[in-house]
């Protein structure tokens, strides 16, 4: 029997560990049951072999699945790694965020509690719930129970099953009927209070006519001693609801020789449950040693809309296999996919996407554009779209191109006085423009700088 008073669970995974996690978090019985069911299913599953990525076998019994939140270690900005501060400077991360991101106890620098409190009050006035999923389980158990695992079932895939069994925290967001969320919700306002851990779970619900824009991550490099990250994000949009989910992912990618770095195995899925609902994913993926994620939309409601806008950049030895699934079930459903892959160094970057038009999806439409750019001769760019059409009134269009940054393009810009680094940044941002346009303004500016930083020294 595991010691329930211990701050950290022993390595390894078994039903006792899951019971421990659930008990530590004072969870209701149904949630423990969900975890156990997911775990038992996980035991029967095999790690997926189809992604176009290579990594040594993960020893799941060598992972610590629960450890109590630790207090922040650093007392002032002077203790922060100067290299990290230099990066913040280059990215233009605001001073107050730098402290939080660097792991400095924020109240030493400024009063973040008051920022977060004001924020929460404003949301509470309109009835928006935005809290950690642990708090939600405690304070809004019925809502969580109604929706958790309905979009990504506990046995959906290997990593989702693992997450369902052992998730420790994440975000919960509920926008009641008819409410337009008055501000963009950002995980930044939560990371001060608690680390999300390696098995993050997010659930966002927009009721009838509600709308919300949610920002995940940040451009600052995020270090973490946990190599494996398996998050699950579920979105539910009811009639006429609208959810926009934006991610900038810049986890530690390993060094230039490909040693270290995060394995980012994420399941993100949105259910357009109601008629005329809309879910839009925007992602800028620049970090992690391995990225495996397919933010998807299940278009169940008639006239519902799914969108996926993605920039995935890989450099050095990074590997990315990312894309989306658009599953059209309802009538007149629409989807749009814009994917921009940039490969540099010895990296490998794959777009993998599914567009499925079901037999009932009269009048469904999809448009996909998947462009790749290669920088250097040692990287790879792949495009694997799957198109499955079971309805003859549907219309599906897919286009893909591969290009490079041409010597003549660089010369043209040089002839106008623009140096190589700036020219590359300009061309890359032009290449990604359709995606950056989808990001909130300040995010877009940071993302632009981030790509430039990530490609430093790759060209010429």
């Amino acid at each position, binding site marked *: 029997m595991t010691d329930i008073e211990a701050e950290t669970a022993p390595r390894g995974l078994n039903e006792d560990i899951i019971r421990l996690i659930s008990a530590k978090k004072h969870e209701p019985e149904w949630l423990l049951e969900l975890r156990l069911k997911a775990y038992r299913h996980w035991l029967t599953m095999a790690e997926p072999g189809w992604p176009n990525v290579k990594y040594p076998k993960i020893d799941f019994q060598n992972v610590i699945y629960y450890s109590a939140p630790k207090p922040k270690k650093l007392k002032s900005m002077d203790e922060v790694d100067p290299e990290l501060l230099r990066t913040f400077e280059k990215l233009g991360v605001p001073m107050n965020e730098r402290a939080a991101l660097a792991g400095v106890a924020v109240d030493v620098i400024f009063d973040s509690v008051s920022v977060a409190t004001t924020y929460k009050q404003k949301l509470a006035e309109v009835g928006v719930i935005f809290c950690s999923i642990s708090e939600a389980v405690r304070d809004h158990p019925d809502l969580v129970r109604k929706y958790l695992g309905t979009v990504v079932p506990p046995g959906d895939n290997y990593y989702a099953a693992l997450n369902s069994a052992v998730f420790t925290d994440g975000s919960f967001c509920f926008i009641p009927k008819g409410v337009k969320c008055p501000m963009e919700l950002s995980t930044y306002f939560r990371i001060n209070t608690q680390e999300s851990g390696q098995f993050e779970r997010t659930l966002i619900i927009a009721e009838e006519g509600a709308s919300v824009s949610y920002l995940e991550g940040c451009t600052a490099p995020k270090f973490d001693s946990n190599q494996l990250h398996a998050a699950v994000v579920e979105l539910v949009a009811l009639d006429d609801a609208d959810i926009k989910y934006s991610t900038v992912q810049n986890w530690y990618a390993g060094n230039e020789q490909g040693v270290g770095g995060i394995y980012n195995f994420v399941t993100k899925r949105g259910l357009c449950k109601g008629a005329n609902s809309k879910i839009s994913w925007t992602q800028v993926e620049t970090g992690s040693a391995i990225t495996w994620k397919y933010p998807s939309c299940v278009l169940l409601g008639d006239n519902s809309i799914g969108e996926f806008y993605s920039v995935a950049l890989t450099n050095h030895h990074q590997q990315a296999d990312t894309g989306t699934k658009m599953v059209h079930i309802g009538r007149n459903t629409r989807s749009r996919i814009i994917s921009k892959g940039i490969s540099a160094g010895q990296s490998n970057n794959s777009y993998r996407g599914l567009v499925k038009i079901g037999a009932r999806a009269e009048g469904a439409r999809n448009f996909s554009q998947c462009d790749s750019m290669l920088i250097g001769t040692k990287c790879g760019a792949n495009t694997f779209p799957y198109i499955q059409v079971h309805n003859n009134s549907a219309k599906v269009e897919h286009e893909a191109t591969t290009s490079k940054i*041409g*010597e*003549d*393009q660089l*010369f*043209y*810009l*040089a*002839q*106008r*006085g*623009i*140096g*190589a680094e*700036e020219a590359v940044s*300009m*061309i890359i*941002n*032009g*290449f*990604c*423009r*359709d995606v950056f346009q989808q990001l909130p303004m300040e995010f877009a500016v940071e993302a632009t700088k981030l790509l430039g930083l990530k490609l430093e020294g790759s060209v010429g």
Partner: protein
Amino acid sequence: MTRADAKVLLEVKGLHANVAGVEILKGIDLVVRAGEVHAIMGPNGSGKSTFAKALAGHPAYEVTAGTATFEGRNIFDMAAEERARAGLFLGFQYPLEIPGVSNAAFLRLAYNTVQGARGKDELDPLEFDDYVREKMKLLEMDASFLDRSVNDGFSGGEKKRNEILQMALLEPRLAILDETDSGLDIDALRVVSGGVNRLLTRDNAVVLVTHYQRLLNYIVPDYVHVMEGGRIIKTGGRELAVELEARGYDWLKGKVAA
């Protein structure tokens, strides 16, 4: 206008250059002074465009012998962008397309970079917008050009106007215009050459690289050079262009400039 005492902008001596290991330029000499208009003519493959690109510093063109100075500086010691910042401008025969990059952002970046190199003030987006619109009027360009991606989907004429607009913004000391007339209809030719004429002062100079005499009816050269086989084989005044138009290039073949 040509004045013997005018400042020498460009001086090229015995220039040899290779492309992919093949020698294209086989000894070119040329002096361009402030206030002058030169035309370099010659049949296809004579090396005209190679000469222009080699001067501007295209990486595919390898200079194997000879010298070139621009306002006294050895340009072969300078990277392409340094030459541009020093005031050497190349109008491209085939301007490159850069999808997704707005023309306005590109023009402003180029302008501010060159201004900065000259120690002058940069313009913010609003100031620049006023400035560029003024210049665009010269070339009868619609304001919608600013929002479109650089040369992306532009017609041949639109691309050439965009080149001259860049020349107007960057105010080079020496502009080398490579086949700026190719692909232009008569109205566009009038507008483009009108733009170039208005930019000419006693302190700058233009080298026109062209296959046809047509452009020279609009921009009148002080000197006409004929290139053949990687050398300048004849130099004359504007009347030489007229003679070439009437007689073609064949009568000059085999001749070497005295």
